[in-house]
């Protein structure tokens, strides 16, 4: 069990601290007291951050006396990476602008990719529709009305070819927002590279491929053990074949959006990552190989400084776990790499233009927190899918931040802030404490079986909801300053019509008619047999994808062999 302990030396000498303490008490007794008396003691009584870390009026070196510069912060690019994973951060290279894209049909998705690239996007981020995520083809009657709604349908290699038509995938990294299992859609992406004759070693990108997330906050389609097996199948295959691919992007984001606090988001994602690491180690992979293929996907929410502290603390906790618990030797393995997305639930349907401002603050927090790649939500998030215009504004938000504000000119500009360093330390302690709780339950997989994270997050969500309901958490234009105009809408909404769905269904039908169905059947049968033998299924999935097997057909093999997960009720 990893137990957190402090063994730090002081940052400040004793004489200074005792003088400061005396001076601080004097200030409280005189200047502050007089001021409050004059103002009839009217002061907002804010006691904690949004995840419950105690805060007070003002912070001084007294609050960071146990923060040691060398062991707690260090220099950027060096252990424990609190100040950033690279020595020069954005002076070397800007973070990657990676905008979530995908809706309607693969053709529409391709148009959006190109539109964003033309406007300066630097990485791709393909979001799938729910039918694809859950393993149903667009022509499956049970997903009627849902095709292309929250993302792009990617049913077969044909859809992947269309979505990436004219885009040189060897020159740009792509994130595949697969939610649960990465394998079927990843197989199609790899098949695309193979058909284009590109060496796998040149393909860079990320698959989400974190099934634990849906056990904590959603509705997982396959049982836990099978899901872990299939997720780590991809990790294992990638370790041997694709040096530039992140096989698992651990999903703190969805936990947070479903109601987790910053502490829960941080601790559960770090715990989840260890489940995959341990399964990888069990398969004989080296920790230094595994580490290079795991990254994180996190949320940036409203509590500005706490979010920055969260990212700094996560880097530190991760570095320590990788170095001390797993004994990774290569410093690159200690680096906590993350993509962030601005919070969607923090955005409002009322007065949607205000969301541009909210997102800008979120983006600023991500950058001050040392993000590697960033998606900024569009202002119409609470109303529908982003239009080209709102997606462009969201993209511009990042460009303005980098090119105009100068915030990215200095590494970790908030380092040394009494408040931020205090919060970072407290956040770190809170993360360790939750990690220890999880270990006491027998590890994250045992805790997941007992639905401990699920209940924990649900409690937090419900508490927040009631606080918004009673106004304790203010939301401008919703529970405060709501006017008649707040609910009037004068922006265009993107609606994915049934016409697009029907078009996509025709695409799927065309593929079923033109491909070699015997070959597909044979390859799926081979995959099933391999599954029954317990083999790594990734090569079989790629082979099936090359023959235009569909996501539904691949998933059918999974469902047949492993069964389906009963709905989780917590």
């Amino acid at each position, binding site marked *: 069990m990893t137990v957190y302990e402090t063994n730090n030396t002081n940052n400040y000498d004793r004489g200074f601290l005792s003088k400061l303490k005396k001076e601080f008490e004097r200030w409280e007794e005189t200047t502050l007291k007089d001021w409050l008396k004059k103002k009839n003691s009217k002061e907002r009584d804010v006691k904690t951050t949004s995840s419950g870390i105690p805060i007070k009026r003002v912070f001084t070196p007294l609050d960071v006396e146990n923060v040691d510069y060398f062991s707690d912060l260090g220099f950027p690019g060096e252990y424990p990476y609190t100040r950033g994973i690279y020595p020069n951060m954005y002076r070397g290279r800007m973070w990657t602008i990676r905008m979530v894209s995908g809706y309607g049909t693969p053709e529409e998705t391709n148009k959006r990719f190109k539109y964003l690239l033309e406007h300066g996007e630097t990485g791709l981020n393909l979001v799938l529709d*729910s039918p694809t995520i859950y393993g149903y083809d667009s022509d499956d009657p*049970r997903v009627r009305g849902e095709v292309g709604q*929250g993302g792009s349908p990617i049913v077969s290699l044909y859809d992947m070819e269309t979505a990436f038509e004219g885009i040189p995938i060897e020159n740009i990294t792509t994130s595949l927002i697969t939610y649960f299992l990465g394998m079927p859609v990843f197989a199609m992406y790899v098949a695309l590279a193979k058909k284009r004759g590109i060496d796998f070693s040149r393909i860079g990108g990320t698959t989400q491929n974190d099934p634990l997330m849906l056990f904590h906050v959603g*509705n997982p389609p396959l049982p836990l053990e099978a899901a872990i097996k299939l997720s780590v199948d991809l990790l294992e295959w990638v370790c041997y074949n694709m040096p530039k691919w992140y096989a698992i992007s651990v999903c703190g984001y969805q936990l947070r959006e479903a109601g987790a606090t910053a502490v829960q988001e941080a601790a559960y994602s770090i715990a989840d990552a260890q489940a995959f690491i341990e399964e990888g180690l069990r398969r004989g992979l080296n920790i230094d190989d595994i580490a290079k293929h795991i990254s994180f996907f996190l949320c940036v929410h409203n509590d500005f400084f706490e979010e920055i502290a969260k990212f700094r603390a996560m880097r530190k906790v991760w570095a320590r776990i990788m170095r001390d618990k797993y004994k990774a030797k290569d410093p690159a393995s200690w680096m906590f790499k993350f993509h962030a997305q601005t919070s969607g639930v923090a955005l409002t349907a009322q007065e949607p233009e205000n969301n541009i401002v909210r997102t800008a603050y979120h983006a600023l927090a991500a950058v001050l927190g040392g993000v590697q790649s960033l998606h900024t939500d569009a202002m119409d998030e*609470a*109303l529908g899918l982003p239009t080209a215009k709102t997606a462009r504004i969201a993209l511009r938000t990042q460009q303005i931040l980098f090119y105009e504000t100068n915030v990215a000119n200095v590494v970790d500009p908030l380092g040394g802030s009494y408040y931020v360093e205090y919060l970072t330390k407290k956040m770190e302690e809170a993360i360790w404490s939750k990690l220890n709780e999880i270990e006491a339950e027998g590890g994250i997989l045992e805790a997941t079986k007992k639905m401990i994270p699920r209940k924990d997050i649900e409690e937090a969500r419900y508490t927040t909801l009631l606080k918004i*309901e009673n106004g304790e958490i203010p939301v401008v234009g919703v529970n405060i300053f709501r006017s008649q105009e707040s609910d009037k809408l004068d922006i265009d909404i993107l609606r994915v019509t*049934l016409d697009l769905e029907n078009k996509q269904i025709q695409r799927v039908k065309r593929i079923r008619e033109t491909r070699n169905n015997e070959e597909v059947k044979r390859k799926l049968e081979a995959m099933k047999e391999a599954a029954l033998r317990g083999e790594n299924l990734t090569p079989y999935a790629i082979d099936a994808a090359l023959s235009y097997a569909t996501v539904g057909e691949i998933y059918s093999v999974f469902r047949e062999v492993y069964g389906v997960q009963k709905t989780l*009720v917590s």
Partner: protein
Amino acid sequence: MTFKVLLAKIGVDIHDVGIRMIARYLRDNGIEVIFLGYALPDTIVRTAIDEDVDVIGISSMQGMHHVRVPEVLELLKKNQANIPVIVGGIIPPNEAEELLKLGVKAVFPPGSSLSQILETIKKLAQERRKSILQANV
């Protein structure tokens, strides 16, 4: 007898946190909730009739309401079931109007208050009970 509400998502729309929270809030406020999770319109309508629920609540976060909600209304009509339907989720004002025209009794976009949802459900349930009891006299 307490009011009984059936809550469901249709199909596979991955966002189910909101409706689970609504389920909990309604239960905490004395409403009996049948939470179906993910279901298709025929299951929703069959269960609603079998369980004699007072209100059906559907969550739509990814736009399926324009196809699936009319199906639910159609099936209810076909089965002569007088059960009011409400919808919550990512539904812009113009689409909310369309749903209301089709016969949905209330639409709750993001930013709706919990108490407002509760009150609407109570009112709709009362109206339904009243019409049944009056018809039986």
